[in-house]
């Protein structure tokens, strides 16, 4: 069944109305839940671990409930009342001399669940921040990545709830309130990016009634939207080389308060931009028994920004061509055959580079594969091309053990 979100996105600052539709309530699994697990596991590995002790009043977070009314650009800002939140950018870039690149820049915020910590001061612990930055140099067959984490003490990291500004040390994503452009900046030892992105289409809101439901209980959901096609320009450097680049980016923003179920081992997530102007998000949540979680879902975004919800039964993804990671020993598929009969889509997705694994440098950390891919196939019989970013977790041994 395909549920069509009938949200209209008016101009900035006004509030779109959200239709209530109780019947569509079930089975809209969050692609996003994946990252919650990721964050949580990484926290576990970084901190000294202490068994939970006697009950003390804990910090209350708001549940993601149906009927949430989005306001833009305010919903780009940080939602500290929710436990977990992230801003996720991926994109394909091309230099003036036609060299292709892919990048990923993501920021995570996780609310600290205790209520009797120290209040005030530069080191007040309300949130923990994490960020990943990766760059794929397709022609040089090189993949660069780095991770950062911070409590945000003394301005080292933060996410504002007054404006769109999220940063961790010298990595940041922000929005120029005048032009509405998103400004991304990140710099690692090997490479850097400085990009300016147009928002492009109106935000595509995933799920129904402003929530992306993950289980049948009330509040077991999150708020999740994407800018699926953001024209990008800027510059990137690799080593001493500097490139002026243009391309297209994809932004995900999600916030919620509940954790993921224990029987899920990982997920495969796809963001696809086709050259006919349509975009699509799909994901498969893999369970311990080898099947897919029925909550797995997707969203089809038409060229005009119209959104259609896709259920697991609406699409099929077959993977092939396993690549074995020399870093973690994990085996990742790098070739996918995607069919969406209702949209007459038949697509072949191929990794632009096999090794796009973000192998955690910390042995106990979490490793995953997130990479730039090319798309080739047919829509309603006609040739269609495009680009995609694919994220796969739970294939490396470290992750399995952690789960």
């Amino acid at each position: 069944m395909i549920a069509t979100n009938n949200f209209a996105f008016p101009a900035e600052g006004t509030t779109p109305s959200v239709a209530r539709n109780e019947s569509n309530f079930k089975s809209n699994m969050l692609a996003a839940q994946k990252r919650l697990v990721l964050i949580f596991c990484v926290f576990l590995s970084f901190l000294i671990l202490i068994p939970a002790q006697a009950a003390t009043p804990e910090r209350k977070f708001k549940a993601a409930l149906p009927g949430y009314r989005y306001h833009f650009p305010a919903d780009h800002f940080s939602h500290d009342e929710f436990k977990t939140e992230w801003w996720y950018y991926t994109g394909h870039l091309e230099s003036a001399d036609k060299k292709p690149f892919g990048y990923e820049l993501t920021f995570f915020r996780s609310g600290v669940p205790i209520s009797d910590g120290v209040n005030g001061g530069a080191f007040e612990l309300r949130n923990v921040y994490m960020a990943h930055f990766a760059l794929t140099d397709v022609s040089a067959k090189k993949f660069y990545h780095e991770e950062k984490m911070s409590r945000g003490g003394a301005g080292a990291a933060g996410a504002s709830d007054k404006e769109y500004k999220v940063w961790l040390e010298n990595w940041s994503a922000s929005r120029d309130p005048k032009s509405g452009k998103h400004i991304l900046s990140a710099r690692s030892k090997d490479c850097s990016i400085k990009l300016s992105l147009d928002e492009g289409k109106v935000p595509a809101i995933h799920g129904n009634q402003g929530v992306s439901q993950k289980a049948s209980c009330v509040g077991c959901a999150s708020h999740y939207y994407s800018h699926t096609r953001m024209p990008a320009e800027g510059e990137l450097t690799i080593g001493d080389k500097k490139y002026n680049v243009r391309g297209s980016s994809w932004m995900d923003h999600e916030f919620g308060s509940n954790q993921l179920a224990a029987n899920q081992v990982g997920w495969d997530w796809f963001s696809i931009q086709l050259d006919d102007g349509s975009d699509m998000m799909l994901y498969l949540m893999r369970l311990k028994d080898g099947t897919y979680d029925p909550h797995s879902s997707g969203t089809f975004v038409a060229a005009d920004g119209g959104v259609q919800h896709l259920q697991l039964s609406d699409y099929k993804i077959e993977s092939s061509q396993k690549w074995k990671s020399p870093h973690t020993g994990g085996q990742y598929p790098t070739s996918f055959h995607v069919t969406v009969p209702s949209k007459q889509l038949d697509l072949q997705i191929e990794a632009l580079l096999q090794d796009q694994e973000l192998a955690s440098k910390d042995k106990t950390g979490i490793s995953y594969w997130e990479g730039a891919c090319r798309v080739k196939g047919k829509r309603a019989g006609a040739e269609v091309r495009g680009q995609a970013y694919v994220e796969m977790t739970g294939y490396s041994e470290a992750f399995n053990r952690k789960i």
Partner: protein
Amino acid sequence: MSAFFSLSRTFILRGLIRNRVRSLLTILGIALGVAVMLAINLANASALGRFSESIDLVSGKATLNVVPRFEADIDENELAKLSWLYDEFIKFTPVIDQVVVSAKPPHEVVQLLGLDLFSSKEFREYDTAGGNNFATSSGENNSSKNQANDSLSADDPAAGAVNSSPGPFEIFRRNRILVGSELAKRENLKVGDNLNLFLNDKEVSCPVAGILSSEGLGKAFAGNVVLMDISCAQELLSMKGRISRIDLIVPSERLTEIGSRLSKELPPSVSVERPSRRGMQVEKMLRSFQYNLTALSLIALLVGMFLIYNTMSISVIRRRWEIGTMRALGASMPIVFSLFMGEAIILGLIGSLLGIAGGVFFAQFALAAVSKTVRALYADQPPGSVIVDPMILLLAFGAGMFLTLIAAWAPSMEAISIPPAEAARRASYERKVESLSPRLALFGCVLLLCGFVASIQPALAGFPFFGYLAAALAVFGSAAMIPFLLDKLLRLLSRLLGATIGSEGRLAALSLHGALGRTSVAVASLMVGISMMVSLAVMISSFRHTVEAWVQQTLRADLWLEPAGRDVSNRAGRLTAEIVSKIRKVPGIDSVDAFVEYPIEYQGQPANLGAGELDVMVKHGNLMFLNGEPSAKVLSRVAGHDAGIISESFSLKHDLKIGDTLTLQSPGGPYQIKVEGVYYDYSSESGYIVIPRENFARHYNDLNSTTLAIFLLPNVDPEKVRQDIFAAVPKDSRLNIRTNRELKTQVLKIFDNTFSITYALHAISIAVAILGVMNALFALTMESRRDLGIFKYLGASKEQLGKLVIVQAGLLGTLGNLGGLAIGMALSFLLIHVINKQSFGWTVQFFLPLDFLLQSFALIFVCSILSGLLPARLAEKTPAAEVVRSE
């Protein structure tokens, strides 16, 4: 070769076994010397080693520190000024580093570290006990908890809120701590228990969130370490907005570049330094203390050396006849030499090995004592365990063997110089000594003169090298004069004793005179042992009397008040101005001198800045000034001026006199102080600068106090005021209030703690002295058997012989005692006026502990007699005919 070995077996081993008591005493002497030296050196090295190890563990991978220049801490906002370091890929993290104390006696000193637990693992290693297992179990706990929460939300949708489990965030709750495993063991703490700490005037309960494993940081400060998140540490320590320092990991090739950019971009209130600097500073502070201990311990080894010399000389004298026979039968000079050296080597070897075992054993006690001193004088550092450094063991063994060989060299040379024909004539050696004695005495005089010259030399790089040289010269110089003095003295005594005791007395003196060589050796070794004992006794009692007098004179307040935290050694403990003003209002109080003390750095060296209320000090205080000026007069010159007074040790260390001006750094910029007086102080080696309270408040913007000296109105009961003060302050205030008498007792207790290692050395020196007496006398009397045999042959009765031996023993004991006393006095003079003065900068009034000296004199005398008793018994049994036959 095999002939040599069989010869050694019969010659050496049989000799050693036949004279087993003497061999044993000699071995014990060497063992004791080696053990003392080793124990002291191990303790020193361990104290320092543990300290540097702790500093390394706490510094972790940091290669640069941003530290406060003239305050105790820095503004946390300095961190935000370092954001340019992100683009340089240099990691930095804030650190809070403070000493706190456990509220439970014996008030363990605990190093509290406040770290940003999110970034600290990149800087230093630490883990909770059983670390990784925790991770899994905790993770599982969480997931089950979360499911429980999920269902809870489902049941109660109205709440619309989500509970989440804290899991790894437990440590971020208020006052939560991770405790070092050793501390947990000693305080019997488990996860979930509370560790109560004294902080300023409060007692705070800190729930234990985890126990650190004994690896990495958990090993620092002998496990007396507590870890917190930086935010909790700031709150706990009332350090809102402040941090102790910033750690940075800068690659070594960029240290200069980054260091200078940091200095440029950060305000002048902070400085950039290498983490090793603090270790070096402490090492420098401890060095003179440790060298002094090592030097004192060498005296014990010196006594061991004299014992060997004594034993070997007597051995050679006794065997002249055997040597002559061997030489006549064709034994070469090297063989004879090797035989004697072999005997010494066996003694030295057994003694040194025993000494090493004993040294390692005693090192832990020495370390405990050394740590007490270090803690009282320099830095708070729990003792930790002894680091048994094989190099130090080897060094001690080498020293034992080397000194043995040196001591045995002369007697062995003497042995081979005996021509076969002359060997039968036993007296030749003694005659040689007699003829040599004036020249030896002259040589001794030269040594003593050199010693005197050395004693008036200044310190060499802060270490009293020449003082120790003078001490060594005094010992050897006096030893060289012994034969000459004995020659004259014994002649005199023989007449004197003959007149008083009778012929036995005369014969006793004459027989000692007849064997001048061995008598001299015996007296000298006795003398060295006793001199060590005497000098330490004089030094300690002089020091203690000086401090007692100073305490009596200086500590005039009726009550003395400190926050509990500070009292039990956390020097950072403070009283707020509110509490002080409450105390001032308690009836019966005439005035209160609220003193504040602040650790500072002056010209790169640690010092203390104190500030007191001068009007109160003028009225009541009674500091003793070096130039004898009355306290009130000096202090009234200070009041209201940019002036201050300095302690004697500070004055000596920095060469500052009255009228000089010194410049101090403060948050408000540098300011100058004119020195108006130099006062006696024995509470700190690094020294004090004391300025008026209002000046301190102006420069440092600090209104807190560290100690209150409370002066009462006449006829007010201190006990009642003490109770009234407790009633006046908030209930949760933890204050220690001492009456004048209690404080004085406390000060002397601290003094005794400081001197505990010296007391230990003193006890050992008594043992060494007694050992020396027994060895010397026993050997000497044994060797007098020949004389005794003749006397017996000539008709002396058993009783007469016994009396003769005992008189001889008493005579030796007395001579050694007198010599030891004389040299001991000289040594104590050197210790007090040269060595201590140059090392610590304290003037100590010379004081003679007459009671102790009399007691020890008697003890040594009794030991002498006792050591003579066994030989006397043997002498009585001597078959006269056998002895005389050989004559």
